[in-house]
């Protein structure tokens, strides 16, 4: 009985969360639109969606990592390293097919992610420490392979730069890729055994192990997937901004984690929904795009973002606490 109550309530809360987030995004958009009518113009909206595409790709990967109670702070550096290697390859071989460039980026990312996965699963280092160390190592390697130089727009082939501007089926390629990944993730976490095992491992690692889930395999999988997505995002990033620098995406991991937390992913594992994460990414995208439009100084953006994340974290906790207390009160003794 009480179990049923609890599940009903949590389901309600889950829906409420996403609707609340959606409502907040709509409200924010209306306010920004009233202050600056340029916000909802087609040009600006396309820009907003394109910017959010890369963030949402990374946030979906980070969601899986957070669900297993882990964290990956190295993705900004992985993104830079794979973007840089892809850009260097394009500089050396201008005739390279763009798909091949993307593939190179993904491979580099997968290798980076697999190293982190190994450290977490086999060596047993706390994810935050392992990824902090690798963040440094990957960032250093980015400077090292590039010889501290930038790869600028004129050194890249047009076909490579075209990745970010072209469109497939009338949709911008960046957005198209993000949609494909979104659909894949939605299916993967909800309908496959491995996807459900990720949640099981996150909500209770001990019982997951006892019930026969190969936890090392799951850890390897989520970190490698995260690495692969960072590699993909790295190539897209470099193509979009038409420049690969040593400090590309520095600190971006925090924005990605913020998108997840805003989307309702619990850092304590086991909780998180694909749609929520997407909404979280969109909210950050709207803030990023809208605040400069209403003349908020760019230097205030970081503080506002930090305050919103902190409030979201606290809000999550307070709501969860209240729900649990109500459940206890309602329990039939």
């Amino acid at each position, binding site marked *: 009985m009480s179990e049923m109550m609890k599940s009903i309530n949590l389901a309600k809360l889950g829906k409420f969360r996403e609707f609340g987030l959606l409502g907040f995004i709509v409200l924010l958009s209306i306010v920004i639109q009233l202050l600056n009518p340029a916000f909802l113009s087609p040009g600006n909206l396309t820009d907003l969606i394109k910017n959010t595409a890369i963030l949402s790709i990374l946030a979906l990967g980070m969601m899986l990592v957070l669900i297993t109670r882990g964290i990956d702070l190295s993705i900004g550096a992985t993104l830079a390293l794979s973007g840089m290697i892809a850009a260097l390859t394009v500089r050396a071989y201008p005739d390279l097919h763009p798909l091949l460039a993307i593939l190179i980026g993904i491979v580099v990312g997968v290798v980076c992610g697999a190293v982190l996965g190994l450290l977490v699963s086999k*060596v047993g*280092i706390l994810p935050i*420490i392992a990824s902090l*160390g690798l963040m*440094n190592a990957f960032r250093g390697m980015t400077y090292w392979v590039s010889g501290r130089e930038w790869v600028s727009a004129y050194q890249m082939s047009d076909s490579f730069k075209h990745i970010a501007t072209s469109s497939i089926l009338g949709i911008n390629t960046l957005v198209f890729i993000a949609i494909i990944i979104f659909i894949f993730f939605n299916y993967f976490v909800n309908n496959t055994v491995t996807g459900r095992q990720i949640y099981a491992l996150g909500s209770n690692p001990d019982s997951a192990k006892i019930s026969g889930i190969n936890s090392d395999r799951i850890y390897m999988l989520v970190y490698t997937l995260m690495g692969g997505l960072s590699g993909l995002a790295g190539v897209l990033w470099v193509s979009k901004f038409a420049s690969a620098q040593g400090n590309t995406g520095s600190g971006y991991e925090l924005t990605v984690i913020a998108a997840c937390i805003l989307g309702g992913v619990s850092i304590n594992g086991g909780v998180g929904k694909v749609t929520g994460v997407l909404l979280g990414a969109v909210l950050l995208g709207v803030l990023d795009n809208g605040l400069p439009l209403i003349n908020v100084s760019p230097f205030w*953006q970081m503080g506002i973002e*930090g305050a919103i994340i902190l409030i979201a*974290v606290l809000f999550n906790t307070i709501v969860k606490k209240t729900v649990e207390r109500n459940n206890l009160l309602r329990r039939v003794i």
Partner: protein
Amino acid sequence: MSTRIVSNIQKFTWKRFFLQWEWMLIALLVIIFTINSNISPYFLNYTSITDATMTFLDKAFIVFPMVMIMIMREIDISVGSTAALSSIVMATLYNAGVPMVIAIVACLLVGALCGFFNGYLLVKYRELSAVIVTLSTMILYRGIAYMILEDRSAGDFPDWFSYFGWGYVGGIPFILCLFVVLAIGFVLLLQKTTIGRRIYAVGSNPKASRFSGVKVDKIKLLVFTLAGLMAAITAIFLTSRMGSTRPNVANMYELDVIAMVALGGISTVGGKGKMLGAVLAVFVIGYLQFGLGLINIPAQMLLIVIGILLIVSVTVTNFRVTRKAPQRKAKKNQAKKVS
């Protein structure tokens, strides 16, 4: 009722004495010194060594509270941002006409307040993890620093202020003197006082220590506030040495500090490790950086070295801790069989 004496004091043996992690760090220091002085004739020189010490010691003050935090199974990644914010507040107040002494006090207060806020959130909402709280405040504190100063820099401090960063006490850098005094204080605090022993107790079993009457919340609050305060002290030395400050100072300091603590043999699973090890690790990493700089290895390679050093040292300390686990398991199984 018979009383059982529970004591964790092990019998002294020479073998155990020499198997301590701290000897390993001392050996590392000796190796670094030998290699460096062979490679570069400029290394073994009193001025260059003291100069190097002054440049890497500023962040070392955060190592003390970070050791306690990590022994308690927590982490604080907002310390770099805290240092930046307190440095900005100090410079802004001084530039607004506030006397320097009061600005310095304000700097310390802001740092302590930042740390206290972290601790307060963790204590008030126990289900929040330190990772997420300090991650959010890391963005928030640096964000506030940017709000105050935007892209400007602040400086023009009075002449005597540079004493913190550049001053000597009888031939020894002032910062080194303060570091040694504080190091002795913190070693005694952690190893000899009740609070220190309770920090270990909380780290080895938070629940059990709460049930046995240890005021876990109070200790947590104290330790996080100390982390903020020490970040402010770091800010004072850093600002004094550089002569001006910007919102992006002390960037990624948390990483260097965590690397030092991990290399010092503090286990990230809590309850193990000594302050002395971390203090030695400060010098190991500091002189390693200095030596690599002397032989013209670019700063980017340093990033790789520190990253790998961090992972290797955590692996080794984890290995030392878990090596004894199979024996414990065997004993547990035996106990189960008996019952």
